[in-house]
C-alpha cells in the first residue's frame, strides 16, 4: 500500500509539475503581448475640467441610439439615469467631497466624470466572447456587439473591467447593450453624438493619436495659461473661446490602462476617486489568451497527454486480458 501510494503520488506530482510548468513558465515567444492600436483608430477625449455637468451628451446619446428618455423631452436634462443600463450607454456622474466648493479639486471639491465604453485596444469582452458576438473593428477599433451571434452567456459582462456591457435580465429575448461610438451615424457623415453635442468641448471625437497629442498638449500647459481648445471633433475645426488651462493630475487615463483604451481622460481629481479602476499596463485579455494558447495551441499539449493516457489505458486493458477489469463490464 505504501508503495502504491508513493507511486501514485510520484505520478500525480510529476503530472502536476508538468501542468504547472506549462502554466507558469510559458516560453516568452508564445506569450501573447498586448494588441496594438488599429491604424485608423478613433475615440473620444473627455476632459473633466471642461465638463459643466449639463448632461446634453446623455440626452444626445439616447436620441442617437433610439433609447427612451424617462422624463418629457423639454426637461430631458432632468433624466434620472444614474447608472449605465440597457437604455443608457453614456452617463455623467458627479464626484463630491466635503463641502464640494471648488471644481476639479479632490478635497472639498467636486468633478464630473463621463462613463461609457472605453473601446479598449485589447478588450476583455472580445477575448471572452465564445461566439464572436463582441468584435473589435480591425481598422477603427470600435468594439461592437452583434445580437444575432450572441448566446447570452454574459462572459463579456464579467470580463469588462469598466462595467460597460449591460444585459436585459427581464426579457425572454435579451441582448447586450453598450456604446458603439455611434458608428451607425458615420455613413451620414456624423460622429459620436456625445462629442457632437458637447457645448464646452469636454468630450471631443477624433483619431486616437490626435486625441492623445491634444491631451499631452493640455497637460504641458501652465495652469491659468489662456488657449483655445478643439470642440466636437479634432477634424471639424471647431474651437472653444479662449479660456484658461486647468490644473490636471499628471495622468492621461486610458493611455496605458489595461493595454490602453480609445477613450482618453483628463481630470483635476485622481481617477480612482472618479470611480475608474486602477489597471496594470498588461491587458487581462493577453494574460488569459497566453494561458489558453500555451495549453492548447495546435492542440499539441492535449495530443501528447492523450498519447500518454492511451498508452496507459491500453496497457492496463491488455494486462488484465479480457477479465472483468478489462472494462466497466
Amino acid at each position, binding site marked *: 500500500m505504501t508503495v502504491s501510494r508513493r507511486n501514485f503520488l510520484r505520478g500525480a506530482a510529476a503530472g502536476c509539475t508538468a501542468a504547472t510548468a506549462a502554466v507558469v513558465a510559458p516560453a516568452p515567444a508564445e506569450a501573447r503581448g498586448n494588441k496594438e492600436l488599429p491604424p485608423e483608430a478613433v475615440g473620444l477625449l473627455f476632459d473633466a475640467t471642461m465638463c459643466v455637468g449639463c448632461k446634453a451628451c446623455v440626452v444626445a446619446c439616447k436620441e442617437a441610439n433610439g433609447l427612451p428618455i424617462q422624463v418629457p423631452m423639454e426637461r430631458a436634462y432632468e433624466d434620472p439615469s444614474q447608472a449605465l443600463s440597457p437604455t443608457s450607454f453614456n452617463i455623467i456622474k458627479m464626484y463630491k467631497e466635503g463641502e464640494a466648493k471648488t471644481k476639479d479639486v479632490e478635497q472639498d471639491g467636486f468633478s464630473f466624470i463621463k462613463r461609457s465604453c472605453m473601446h479598449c485596444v485589447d478588450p476583455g469582452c472580445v477575448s471572452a466572447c465564445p461566439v464572436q458576438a463582441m468584435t473589435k473593428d480591425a481598422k477603427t477599433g470600435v468594439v461592437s456587439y452583434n445580437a444575432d451571434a450572441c448566446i*447570452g452567456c454574459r462572459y463579456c459582462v464579467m470580463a469588462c473591467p*469598466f462595467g460597460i456591457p449591460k*444585459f436585459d435580465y427581464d426579457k425572454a429575448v435579451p441582448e447586450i447593450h453598450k456604446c458603439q461610438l455611434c458608428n451607425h451615424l458615420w455613413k451620414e457623415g456624423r460622429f459620436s453624438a456625445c462629442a457632437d453635442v458637447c457645448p464646452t468641448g469636454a468630450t471631443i471625437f477624433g483619431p486616437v493619436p490626435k486625441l492623445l497629442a491634444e491631451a499631452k498638449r493640455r497637460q504641458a500647459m501652465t495652469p491659468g495659461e489662456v488657449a483655445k481648445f478643439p470642440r466636437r471633433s479634432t477634424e471639424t475645426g471647431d474651437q472653444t473661446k479662449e479660456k484658461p488651462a486647468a490644473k490636471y493630475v499628471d495622468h492621461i487615463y486610458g493611455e496605458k490602462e489595461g493595454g490602453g483604451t480609445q477613450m482618453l481622460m483628463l481630470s483635476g481629481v485622481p481617477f480612482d476617486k472618479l470611480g475608474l479602476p486602477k489597471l496594470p499596463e498588461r491587458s487581462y485579455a493577453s494574460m488569459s489568451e497566453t494561458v489558453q494558447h500555451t495549453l492548447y495551441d495546435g492542440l499539441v499539449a492535449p495530443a501528447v497527454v492523450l498519447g500518454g493516457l*492511451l498508452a*496507459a489505458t491500453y496497457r492496463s486493458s491488455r494486462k488484465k486480458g479480457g477479465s472483468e477489469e478489462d472494462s466497466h463490464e
Partner: protein
Amino acid sequence: MSNYESAGGRLVTPVTLFLGALVAIAGYFVLMRFLFGIGAETPFGAVTNLNDGYSWGIWVVYDVVIGTGLACGGYALALLVYVFNKGEYHPLVRPALLASVFGYTLGGVAVMVDLGRWWNFWHILTPGYANPNSVMFEVAVCIALYIHVLWLEFSPTMFERWGWSNAARRVNKVMWVLVALGCLFPMMHQSSLGSLLIVMGAKVDPRWHTMLLPALFLLSAISMGFAVVMFEATLSADGFRRPRETPMLKKLAVVLSGILAVYLGLRFADLGWRGQIPALFQGDFLARMFWLEIALFALPILLFSRAAWRGSPQVLFAGSVSMLLAASLYRVDGFLVAMTPNGDAFHYFPSVPELMVTIGMIAFEVLAYIVLARVLPVMHGHAPVHGASKAAAVPAGD
C-alpha cells in the same frame, strides 16, 4: 456475464416523492425563466437576482462549476484504475460513473437554462462563430465532448440491462480509448473553469486571482472526484443496505491526502511568490473566508493521517464532506465572494426561485441516481445484506 447487479428495491418511496416535488417546483421557475427572462419577477420573487455586477450566480457557480467538479468521481477513479493501474478500486467505478454521467449532463442542461440567448447555443461549436481565444469556448467544446464520452463509458451498463450483450461487448472493446478520452477532457475543462477568472483581472481579489488558477482548479477537481466517491460509497452503503467498501475507501483517503497536500503547497507557494502572504493576515472578511477554505482543505489531511482514524466510516465520511465543502467554497469565493465589480454598488445573493432551481437540479440528480441504481446493474456484485449479519462480506481487491 456481469459482476454487477442492481441495488433493487421500491421506486416509489417517501424520499423519491419528496425529491419529485422539489423537481416540479424547479420546473415551474424554469418555465417562468424561459417565458419572461432570467431576472423576471414571479409571485415568489425574481427568477434570479443576477445583475450587471454579478452576472453569473449560483446557476453558473453551483450548477456548472461546482456541479461538474462533484461529477469528477468517474474521472478521478478512471485515472486511478486505468492510468495508475490500480485495479483494486474497480468496484467503485460504475457507481462513480453513474454520478458523473448525471452531474455532467445536468451541468449541460443548467447551462441552457442560464444562457440568455440559448437558441443560439450551437454557435459556440460552429466555425465562423466560435472564438478559440475564449476560455468559455474551450470549456464548452470540452464539456460537450465529455458528456458524450461519459454516456459511451456508461452505455455497457444499460446494454446489459436490456440484454444487448453484443453492443456491450463492442463498446467494451474500445473502452480503453474512451477511458483515455475520459481522462483527458476533464483535465482540460476543469482547469479551464479556473482560467475563466483570469480575464476578469482586478475584479477578482489577488488572493484568488493568479495565473495558476487552472492548476489549482484541476487539482481541487480531482480531489473532489475522490471525495465524492467516498461520500457516495458511504451513503449508498447505508441507503441501499449494502456492505461498506471501507478497506478500499481507506486507501483512497491516503491518495486524497496526497493530492490535497500538493494543492495546498502550490497555493501557498504561489501566494508567497506574488507577495500576497501579508494580505492573508489583514483580518478582513475575505481573509477569514480564505482561512475557512484552508481549514476545510486541511481537515481531511489531519483526519486521514492515522490508519486507525481512517478505518472508521464516520471519519472517512467527515473527511470527504470537509473536502467537498472546501473545493466548493474555493469556487464560490473565486467567482462570487472575492469578486468586486466596477461601478455602482452591486450586491448578489440568490433569490428563492433561483435557489429552488438549483435545489431542484440536485433533487433530480439524486432521484435519478436512486432510480437507476435500483434498476441498472451498477453495484459491484455481492448480495445485498439486509441488517448487519453479512456485513463482513468484503469485495475482492483488498
